[in-house]
């Protein structure tokens, strides 16, 4: 897998990832992630972890190559079609939480549900359910500034799962958290994978966090240098 050219992340010559049955990468390397897997990606800064995550989530488009996720060839989707696909299939969790500060926790979780065909009552129910899963029903009316970092990340996870996507992409979800909050978030991601069967790709620098995953990919300078299964 080649992610670098002239020292910058410019081109993904091949990246086919994730989802249903398999991920297809064109030569020089293939990377497959099976449905329901929890995969951690590690590597030094600039190794291309986040780029892979963004391409897998349809946030970035590769300059070349083919990306297929759960039977959909992402590289053929653009603009509104790609947005719609993202809304339907992917939930994002970011290091900086990325909650909308002027909205409450509940309203933040409601946001992706606006993109579903659900009615208002169903959306409310779904948002409450998502907040219940992350254990924050008592913080629904709080704004992000009134929550701790760990609580903010749990709200972000509730938002990521609210519309019941197939795939959760987490970019250093514990990077801004203390150990205790990080453990709580990792435990939550583990439950989502085991109990709800969500496929999770997580970028992390934290070896302890990576141990929660069933598989760890090591990248360096855009190359996949190690693909290891973790014993449960």
């Amino acid at each position, binding site marked *: 897998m080649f992610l670098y050219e002239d020292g910058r992340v410019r081109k993904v010559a091949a990246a086919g990832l994730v989802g249903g049955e398999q991920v297809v990468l064109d030569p020089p390397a293939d990377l497959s992630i099976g449905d329901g897997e929890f995969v951690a990606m590690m590597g030094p800064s600039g190794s291309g972890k986040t780029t892979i995550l*963004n391409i897998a*989530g349809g*946030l*970035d488009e590769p300059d070349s190559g083919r990306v297929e996720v759960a039977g959909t060839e992402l590289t053929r989707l653009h*603009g*509104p079609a790609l*947005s*719609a*696909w*993202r*809304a*339907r299939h*992917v939930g*994002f969790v*970011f290091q*900086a939480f*990325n*909650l*909308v*500060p*002027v*909205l409450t926790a509940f*309203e933040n979780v409601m*946001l*992706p549900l*606006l*993109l*579903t*065909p659900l009615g208002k009552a169903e959306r409310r129910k779904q948002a409450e359910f998502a907040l219940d899963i992350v254990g924050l029903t008592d913080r629904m009316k709080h704004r992000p500034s009134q929550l701790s970092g760990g609580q903010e990340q749990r709200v972000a996870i509730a*938002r990521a799962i609210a519309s019941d996507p197939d795939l959760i992409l987490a970019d250093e979800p514990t990077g801004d958290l203390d150990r205790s909050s990080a453990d709580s978030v990792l435990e939550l991601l583990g439950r989502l994978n085991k109990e709800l069967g969500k496929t999770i790709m997580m970028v992390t620098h934290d070896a302890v966090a990576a141990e929660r995953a069933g598989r760890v990919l090591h990248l360096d300078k855009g190359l996949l240098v190690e693909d290891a299964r973790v014993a449960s």
Partner: protein
Amino acid sequence: MSRTPWLLARRHVVTHWIRTGLTLGSMAVSLFVDLPRDCQAKVAGVDEVAQVCKFQWFGGYYQDRSNFFGQFGVDPELFFEMYAKDLKIVEGPADRAPDETVHQASVRAMLADRRSTVVGSRLAKDFGWKVGDTVQIIPTIFQKVDGSAWDFLVVGIYEPLRSNVDDRTMWLRYDYLQEGLDAGTVTGPRGVGTFSVNLKPGADAAAAIDAIFENGPQRPRTTTEAAFQAAFVSMMGNVPLFVATIGGAVVFAVFFSVINTMLMAGRQRVHEVGILKALGFANSVIGRLMLGEAVVLGLVGGGLGILLAIGTESGMRAMLGTFLPNYAVQPFTLVWAAGLALLVGLVSGIAPALTLVRLRPTEAMRAEA
């Protein structure tokens, strides 16, 4: 399925304050029409004319130039007869005879002394004038040769009965001015600015009166009193145009202020837009949100302006008095203002909306929150 999260726009509107300022200009006014005094007799000779009264703009002020109000030199007996249904003298001299009304006593007192004046109730209240007071008016047109002010003796205070007369006017005796002009102790126009004409019932004498002046050095125009008031305002420095110009300049400045505000708002929303795009909101939704916020801001601002205009209408009318006697906020003006506010909002939202729509999600999320 792609709903627009209008809640976001609403939250931004209420959590961010916009300050706007308006600057008002000051105005300079001048008016001069000078018809020969003997026109009065000629106009009175027209068949359809019942009465003719002089109306001479005095143009002075009380103590300070900011104390601006209308003063007219009139033929007192004629004037109070012609305007008996338009104003009523409610306070008059103390030496009223048992069979006299207050109105009659004041008119009598006015005829007895050339310095006499009858003033509006609001004017009397504002300056603390009472019947019997002598008030000094500083002239701007009818200057005394010795540089002194004019003394006027208040013999009555009137209340308007109809809207064509306001409560801040001072009615003087024209012959008081004439006396000084003829004696050479006063400088100023020796003619008359306006004649007020009462017509016989059903008559239309405008053409006949205008014909009197057809070959004269001046070509005055004969109009109804309402049209005269409007034209008077117009003559006084073309106030409507002046106000429209100021209004236009303010709208222009506000327009750029709103654009600037919306551009700032757009920049502040970059990170948030990145989040929305990552969640799957389409560019069309992002554009609608930004435009919607701009339109709401425009309409809220316009709505406040409209409420202010309606709320201050009567106060403004009272304050402007004779200066803008027909001041009124017309429904058309309100509709026009709302339309303009909508347009300003819409146009100001276009640039930031386009900027946000063009951003890639990852690029937008890298912006500082």
